[in-house]
Every structure is written in structure tokens, then in C-alpha cells.
């Protein structure tokens, strides 16, 4: 056990699984970093965000495969490799790029098992970066996990802290279905206690971050920390909040949410997705169907507005759900009558 960053936890998960199973390999752009430039001397960069640092040095070019900028070929090759019995970890540098290669993800990898029957097992992990907050602008800051979760055959994971990042990634690598593993760029430097050995955090099991009685807040990815930051302000107002991190969106732990809402009678989802057809709307829709009679107030979803992520830092800050908005919405729901 030691303090590790979210980034280090992700690297460690890959290293441990690659040591354990020679069928696991990593493929993507610049993942060694400079591998193709002949006789560089220093440490290979390990991607522009350093998320594959050290892999090339340990596992070499056979299993740490740099590619041209060709996401369709990368994702398709990973899908084909998985269908053929390997266990690829493919990197989609920014999730915003899914539009150039989504066919290989949603029509191919995600459908092989259904279209082809059991022979179509596809043990594939796609690691990709989501999220706003660092000024990366409209095409490098999105969180398209609601779109990923819409797709039957895909699994979708959104770790909110280093411990979960490592455990969920190990589970994803061992899983026999394609998993979109969504790493939040604003969390890469986040630190936490992380065991050194391999461990699994199961897909489909949410976690109660904090227990409470008056309102259930389900928060996703970066939003988990922001929801946590509301606790004291809500407590000052006499509001006891229960915070749930679903950790994986597909499969999704409905029970943990239903149980909580049955207790609190109120639900607020905080979600970084675009609002229309957001994952938040899906959660509230299920709750409004399944545990309607427990609801003491409307269900609410806080997301950014229906607009792209702006480059200007002041607009980006306004774009994201924040403590003020969460406190205000919670207050409204708790005092609803």
C-alpha cells in the first residue's frame, strides 16, 4: 500500500496484467513515444499524458505497439485481435476522437458476441480520456460516456479516484467483453492509497461514498469529488446527503441507487455528459419508474448546458456543474413540497 496518483494506478494495472498474461498488449498512438524516431536515448515518453510510461521499457515493441494516427485501424485491429483470442488494451487518446472510429467499436467489437454467438467473445479494453476543466477546448474536453452506455455489448467504466482506477482497469482487462475505460483528464494527478498488488473492483458495483438520509446524489467521474465538496455546506443547512459513485455505467448498479432513494426519497444526479439523453437522465428515468412511490420530490439532473465545451476558461468554469449548483439543487429538492 502506498500513495499513488490516478495516472500511476492506471499504469500499474496494465503492468501487472501484462506480466500475468502474455496475451495482454497495448496499442495506440505515441504510447511508447518516439519509438519510431530511431536512436532517441531518454526514457520513452509513454504518451502525451504519460499514461503508458515505462511499458515499452519492460515489455518491448512486441506488446507495446505504436501506431500511425489511424484510430479506425487501431480500434479495428484491437477488435480483430480480441476476436482472435488476444486481450488488447487500445488507447483512444481523447474520447472526443470516437467519431473517427466508432464503427469499429459499436458495430464491430460490441456486436461480435451477439452477431456471431459465443464464438464472438471480444475481450477488449479501450482506454480513453474524458472531461473538461483544463482548457482543452471544444474537441478535446468531451465526456461521451452516455453515448457509449447507449450501445448494447459495450461496458463503460468511469473511475473517480486512484484506487478504483487500478481495480476497475484490472477487472476490465480480465473481462471478456469490450470495455470503454474512461479516464478523466482532470484527475490524472489525484493521489490516494493504492495497494501494490493486483486487485479487482468489480464492474457493475457502485459505492456509497458517504451515507446520509435526506437526499441521494449520484455523481459520475470528476463530479464525485465535486459532490463530496458539497457535504459540509449541505450539512450546515441541516441536509444529510448520501453520495453514490456508480463507478461503472454499463453494467450499472441500479439496486444501490434504488435502495438509497427508497431511504432518502430524493435524487439528484450530477453528470458531466451533454444533457440530452445523458446518463443522468437514464438514472432518473429508471428511478421514476421503479421507485416512484418513494419519491418525495422531483428527480433532478445537473449537467453542463446543451452546448460544446468552450475554450475560454471563465466559460469552461461556468460550463461544469459546481458546488453552488449542487447545493442549490439539493436545497430545492429537500425543501420541495
Amino acid at each position, binding site marked *: 500500500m502506498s500513495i499513488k496518483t490516478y495516472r500511476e494506478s492506471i499504469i500499474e494495472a496494465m503492468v501487472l496484467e501484462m506480466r500475468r498474461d*502474455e496475451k495482454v498488449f497495448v496499442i495506440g498512438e505515441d504510447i511508447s513515444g518516439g519509438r519510431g524516431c530511431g536512436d532517441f536515448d531518454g526514457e520513452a515518453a509513454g504518451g502525451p499524458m504519460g499514461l503508458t510510461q515505462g511499458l515499452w521499457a519492460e515489455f518491448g515493441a*512486441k506488446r507495446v505497439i505504436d501506431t500511425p494516427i489511424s484510430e479506425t485501424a487501431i480500434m479495428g485491429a484491437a477488435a*480483430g485481435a480480441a476476436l482472435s483470442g488476444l486481450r488488447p488494451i487500445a488507447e483512444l487518446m481523447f474520447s472526443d476522437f470516437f467519431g473517427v472510429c466508432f*464503427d469499429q467499436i459499436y458495430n464491430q467489437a460490441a456486436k*461480435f458476441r451477439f452477431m456471431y*454467438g459465443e464464438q464472438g467473445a471480444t475481450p477488449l479494453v479501450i482506454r480513453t480520456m474524458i472531461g473538461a476543466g483544463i482548457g482543452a477546448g471544444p474537441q478535446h474536453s468531451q465526456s461521451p460516456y452516455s453515448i457509449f452506455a447507449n450501445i448494447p455489448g459495450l461496458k463503460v467504466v468511469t473511475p473517480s479516484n486512484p484506487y478504483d482506477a487500478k481495480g476497475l482497469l484490472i477487472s476490465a482487462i480480465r473481462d471478456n467483453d469490450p470495455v470503454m475505460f474512461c479516464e478523466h483528464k482532470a484527475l490524472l494527478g489525484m493521489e490516494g492509497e493504492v495497494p501494490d498488488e493486483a486487485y479487482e473492483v468489480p464492474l457493475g458495483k457502485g459505492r456509497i461514498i458517504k451515507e446520509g438520509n435526506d437526499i441521494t446524489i449520484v455523481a459520475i467521474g470528476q463530479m464525485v469529488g465535486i459532490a463530496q465538496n458539497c457535504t459540509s455546506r449541505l450539512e450546515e443547512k441541516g441536509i444529510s446527503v448520501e453520495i453514490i459513485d456508480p463507478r461503472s455505467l454499463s453494467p450499472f448498479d441500479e439496486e444501490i441507487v434504488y435502495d438509497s432513494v427508497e431511504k432518502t426519497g430524493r435524487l439528484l444526479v450530477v453528470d458531466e455528459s451533454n444533457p440530452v439523453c445523458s446518463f443522468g437522465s437514464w438514472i432518473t428515468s429508471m428511478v421514476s419508474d421503479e421507485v416512484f412511490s418513494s419519491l418525495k420530490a422531483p428527480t433532478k439532473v445537473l449537467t453542463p448546458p446543451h452546448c460544446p465545451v468552450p475554450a475560454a476558461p471563465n466559460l469552461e468554469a461556468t460550463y461544469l456543474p459546481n458546488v453552488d449548483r449542487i447545493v442549490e439543487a439539493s436545497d430545492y429538492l429537500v425543501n420541495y413540497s
Partner: protein
Amino acid sequence: MQLSRDKLLDAYTRMKKIRVFEETMRDEFAKGTVPAFIHLYIGQEAIATGICVELTDQDTISSTHRGHGHCIAKKSNLEKMTMEIFCRADGLCGGKGGSMHIADLSVGMLGANAIVGANAPIAVGAALKQRVTGENLVSVAFIGDGASNQGAVFESMNLASVLKLPVLFVFENNGYAEFTGIDYHCGGGDIAGRAGGFGMPSYKLDGSDFFAVQEAAAEAVERARKGEGPSAIECVAKRWYGHFEGDPQHYRTKEELATIRRDFDPLIIFRQKVEEAGLVEGKDLDMIDEDLSSQVSSAVEKAKNSPLPDVKELTTNVYEEGSY
């Protein structure tokens, strides 16, 4: 290299099986028994066969919407394949894939694919086994002339070249992408000619001639197994019928349609070559013909009489059982 008699008979069997099968499917489609659109492989039998006779069961192919011929050439189980086309419970994919999504991984057939060009990177992925785990295998992508213009295909050629993977990009130039002719859709007009731009050797050959295809395949497969990387093989042939069954083909001249069967029949060309060279006697081939007729009609009858999937199967095999 001179092929053995057995190999020649095997090749003929595969080609003829495709022909008989597809003619039968054509009849069935006309009768209305087939549950969806089908795209016939007739006219291109020498391509799938010329390539697949050079492959083992460990070698893989990825196929297209026009995939029946690839399945048969790769020696998929005929009965189970037919059942899949009729969407039956005992089909290769349990009836949920249908004609455009037949797969048979037991013989290295990685699946037909209804997204044009999408099978190319999948074949590259299978080839990664040579690099990652050192397995000896060759991987083939069958790609239409129309599909050759898809980004997925270009990217795959480049990636396979960069990584020196054992891939054959087999371009089946049957002259048309749906209704649009290759003279129109292919800038430069020469599919094989594009391979050089990716640092890849290429062939352009008569795809109605089994021997032309097979010879190129043998060379390319050898190079691939040795770790010398990918090749492109453009096979020029004719699509005898419409894009899909039911296509009235207004865009083809009557002259073109009239001469195809005479001048571009892979089976006739094969027969002539082997008989003239005295490699095989006509009656041996006749026997194969007879045998196949009954094999195919029995497979089709069996398929039509077999049950559709149980409705409970609707939601199975979306994920691994118990994991969702």
C-alpha cells in the same frame, strides 16, 4: 508450381459448391423463403477459392456483405451456414447474424460484415498474433472495389505495412460498388496501384482465373509467413447478377450482361485449363457436380425445416453470461 490432383479437385469442389449454393439461394430468394436481402458471389468463385486453398484452419479471413463464397471457400460447415442465412437456431451464429454476419471461427472465418470496408482492420488485428504471441498465421481481408475507397481500408494497409504484419488485402474488383462503376468511383482507376504508396507489393490479375489468383496467393502467403509483411492482390472479375437479389440493373448494358457468362465463367475457365493440361478428367469434375447438387439441396431443405431461435435468445450473448 504444379498443384497436386487432390488440390485441384479440392479447388474445383469449393468453386462449384459456391456456384451451386448461390444459384440455389437465388431460386429460394425468388420463392420468398429467404428472410432478408442476399448478395450473390457468382462470378467471383475463383477469388475466394484461389486464396483460401493456400490457407490453413489457423489462418483467418474477414469477409463482406457478399460473404457466402468466402465461407464456403474457407470450408465452413455448409449446413450450419445455410441455417444461418435462413436465421435458424442451429445456424453458425444462432440465427441472429443472418446472411451478412456469418462467422465460423472454428475454420478461421472471422465473419461477414455489413459495414463496407470494416473487415479490413479486423483482419489486421488477427494478424497481430504473429507479433504479440509469435503464432504462425496469415490473415486475409476480402475487400470490394467499392470498399477500397473506405478510410478503414487505407488505414489498415498502412498499419499492416508499418507493423509488417502477415496480411493479404484481397481486392475483389467486380466492376461495381452497388450501381456505381469502378471507372467512376476509383480515382486513378487502379486499386492495386495504390498499394505501392503504402510500401506493399501488389498484384493485379484475372480474378476469373483460379490459377492466377492461387499463384499470387501462394507467393503472398509465403512472404507473410516469413514475417515480410503484407501484400495486396487485386482480382478483376465480374459480378454476374445484381448488387442484391432483386436489383434490376438498369445501369448495366445488355451487351455486358450477355457476354459475362460466356467469357468470364471461372468454372469453365478452370475446367478448360485442367482438362487441356490433362491434370484432371472431365468426368471426375462431373461427379463432383452431381455430389454437390444433392449436398446443397439437402442443406437448404434441412435449413428451411429447422426451427427459428427461441425468443428467449433475443437477449443472450449481448455480454458474457453472468457478467451483466
